């Protein structure tokens, strides 16, 4: 996923779970059935996980521009100079 996709996934997850909870509670309260409420909420959780957890293509609409490998070879990484002094070992 890209950055925009991650933000979208998180927002979708929160909103979908809240909606599932509200719908479940309202339906359960009006039908006086605790079981119905739990079933609707469980269904909502499963649906939300199917939408937000896998790496769907619509989460990757603003792909990050990674450097092309052939381009990277033309600009080698600078070498780090290692110091010749050795630290005295403590006993």
């Amino acid at each position, binding site marked *: 996923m890209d950055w925009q996709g991650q933000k979208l996934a998180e927002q979708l997850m929160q909103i979908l*779970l809240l909606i599932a909870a509200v719908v479940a509670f309202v339906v359960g309260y009006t039908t006086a059935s605790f079981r119905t409420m739990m079933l609707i909420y469980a269904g909502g959780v499963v649906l939300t996980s199917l939408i937000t*957890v896998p790496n769907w293509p619509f989460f990757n609409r603003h792909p990050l521009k990674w450097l092309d490998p052939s381009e990277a070879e033309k600009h080698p990484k600078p070498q780090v100079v290692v110091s010749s002094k050795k630290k005295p070992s403590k006993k």
Partner: protein
Amino acid sequence: MHSFGYRANALLTFAVTILAFICAIASFSDNFSKQTPSAQIQLFRSLILLDSDVCGGKPVKILNINWFQKQPHGNDEVSLTLNITADLQSLYTWNTKQVFAFVAAEYETSKNSLNQVSLWDAIIPEKEHAKFWIQISNKYRFIDQGHNLRGKDFNLTLHWHVMPKTGKMFADKIVMSGYRLPDAYR
């Protein structure tokens, strides 16, 4: 939210937190239900042939006192036949798992200011069974600590505990007074 496991974990945690909120609100909604339970226990003395109208209007009636004796260890024991009529249907809400009801005899002695002896109990899981009429002898033995029961006035109290599916348990009672044990053993 950059990996599968990360998103799955966030989703599950949020889902369980919201579930806790749903259960709390469901429990809170119990406060809004109107509860009008009623009960009657009948006492009818077969020996003295008291007309039920004389002690009528009382919710609890004891049907008969079967026997009343002193145990070998010196404690009084009574056996009663109870005729219990109760309508606890209004206690049930959508969040009720079961109602536990029990009848206790309460009286005062010189040693204790309150004695409570449980005589009968029942677990009522369904609303349809909560309106009932039952005539039985006491399920649990009515034994005093001592020999104080002759001529004793006592109350019969119907207690109930409404056990929810989630959340707070409510308990309440109806006190029915005016019962009296005989003055002599028989």
